[in-house]
């Protein structure tokens, strides 16, 4: 199986869907002539022309709202946010309009839009550029949100997102764009709402998503090598819809859970996961659920300190050891 980058995997997904469906159009700042701020759309303008790959001015509220309106007429826009941190200037469109139009029209109108872009910290760009809003999005009925962690997942989830008739928001990571992984040449899709066991184990379940998956994998390796603990790493991949069954099945097997995410702890995704585990697998737990989140403050700039604010493998190891 060929090994390609996360960036290439997303680009391939976009290209395949552009070719499959004439209504798919990619719109965003610098996506066409500049080849993408993070080069995800590099070469697509040359291949598909300016009707399908469209440079937007810096007007997130305007062009995302425009995408929502176009999707109501059956266009399938894939909107790039240079950073998910920029979503807030378009919040009324992203939250209010995209999630409510179907409901308020009694189901008469669909909004088949995809909004994608990186959502991660760890790049020393300060508080305004380091947001991970998957918890905020997942709070809105009507919206779907996925956080792929590998090239394979990124491609398969992106293709499903584009084909979905509901709004799907895809959160990528600038730190993952250059990572590589095996991706089959033949076409495949990954259904939204299906978690993936990234490492099988029997002693503790580490639930994670997006950028925290690699943190969990490193922690699992340390746990095995230094403590002979076999951790199961469960990558949610999709936040909403949520694969509760996979979480409960894993916890029932391991009887312990540590939840890792780059969100902050208060009202983070893992607050919901913790509720679900205690509600559906209470009698299987041999220890309290533990969490590792980003330190609860705006993202610090200082390159020397920012890594300390984000979830680290050492924190995960520590939390696991505390409940063994």
């Amino acid at each position: 199986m060929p090994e390609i980058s996360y960036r290439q995997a997303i680009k391939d997904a976009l290209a395949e869907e552009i070719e499959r469906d004439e209504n798919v159009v990619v719109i965003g700042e610098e996506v066409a002539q500049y080849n993408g701020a993070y080069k995800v759309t590099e070469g697509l303008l040359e291949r598909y022309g300016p009707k399908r790959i469209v440079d937007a001015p810096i007007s997130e509220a305007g062009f995302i709202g425009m995408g929502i309106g176009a999707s109501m007429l059956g266009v399938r826009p894939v909107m790039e946010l240079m950073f998910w941190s920029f979503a807030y200037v378009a919040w009324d469109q992203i939250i209010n309009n995209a999630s409510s139009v179907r409901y308020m029209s009694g189901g008469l109108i669909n909004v088949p839009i995809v909004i994608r872009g990186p959502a991660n910290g760890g790049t020393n760009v300060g508080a305004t550029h380091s947001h991970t809003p998957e918890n905020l999005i997942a709070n809105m009925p009507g919206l779907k949100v996925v956080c792929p962690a590998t090239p394979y997942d990124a491609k398969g989830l992106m293709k499903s997102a584009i084909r979905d008739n509901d709004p799907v928001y895809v959160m990528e990571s600038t730190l993952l764009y250059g990572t590589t992984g095996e991706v089959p040449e033949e076409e495949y899709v990954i259904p939204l709402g299906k978690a993936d066991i990234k490492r099988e184990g029997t002693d503790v379940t580490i639930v994670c998503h997006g950028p925290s998956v690699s943190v969990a994998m490193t922690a699992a390796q340390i746990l095995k090598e230094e403590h002979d603990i076999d951790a199961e790493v469960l990558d949610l991949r999709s936040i909403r819809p949520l694969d509760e069954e996979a979480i409960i099945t894993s916890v029932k097997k391991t009887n312990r859970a540590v939840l890792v995410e780059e969100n902050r702890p208060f009202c983070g995704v893992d607050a919901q996961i913790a509720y679900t585990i205690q509600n559906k697998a209470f009698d299987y737990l041999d220890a309290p659920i533990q969490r590792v989140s980003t330190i609860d403050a705006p993202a610090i700039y200082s390159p020397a300190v920012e890594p300390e604010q984000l979830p680290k493998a050492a924190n995960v190891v520590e939390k696991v050891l505390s409940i063994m």
Partner: protein
Amino acid sequence: MVGFYREMVRIRRFEERSLRVYQQGKIGGFLHLYIGQESIAVACASLMGDHDHMITAYRNHGHALAVGMSMNECMAELLGKATGCSKGKGGSMHFFAPDKNYWGGHGIVGGQIPLGVGLAYGVKYKDQKGSAMAFMGDGAINQGAVHEAYNLAALWDLPAIFIIENNGYSMGTSQERSSSHPKEGLAARAEGYGMAWEIINGESLFAIRDGVGRAIKRAHEESKPTILEIHTYRYQGHSVADANAKKYRTKEEIDDYRKNHDPLNVYRLFLLDQKIMSEDEMKEIDGEAKQEAEVAAQFADESEFPTVESITEDVYWEADNPDKRTSEGRLFFND
């Protein structure tokens, strides 16, 4: 021409009837009445072809009736009934009829304007000869999203028609106290975007049809946007909850409009003057409209409320079409 009269009368009688229903305590939340502005929705709807679309803000009952939605489904929606156009899920501010190219009914001031530009984008993307009329009040013109939408429409030559229904007041704040603009008017801000613009006297249905007709022609033939500012007036408050409606303007001002500038009255006098209709014929139309509104009120009254189970319907397309669902996992988190 009789048809225009009938449509304006229908809207006015519907609004008057809905106010009574509101006063009876049967309508929740807000109720933004269109009384005084009927000529705009009727003139614009009368010019719509197969690929011309309409989207507006929360003062949307007039547009809904003008594009052909029934009084029954509109009144039932006001009462929050399952027979309402949005099954009781949208309410007064959120009427929709995509089969009639009517895309709402939106509650956030100016938030619908980027959507309207999206409709224009869709029309152009599909190579259709059409347009998207995006309506807003004069209170919306200072929202950032509106200006972003202006720029996109002009930059990309989209067949969008921005229609400012300028009734002089954004809630209780007069235009003078809310908007800095070129002396010619609010629409003149179009100059900054290299867009065509026009200011229209909304008391004349024909003037509106002329101006909007030019904008539609520009959209159809050149795929270019236009900003239209149509001067109009609302007799009622911003919404019926606006108890101060007579405090931020004088009684004389309201009376002057009612007497001399009411579009329905102006049109009525024109029809009489030209002997196109007689008083009796007008009375008949008026009676029919009142009766239609009465029937709608009764229909709404007798209709069922939506079920509690329906609260989670129409949220996700996938949840409503389980046989076609491709995703897995939980979509709702109610236990």
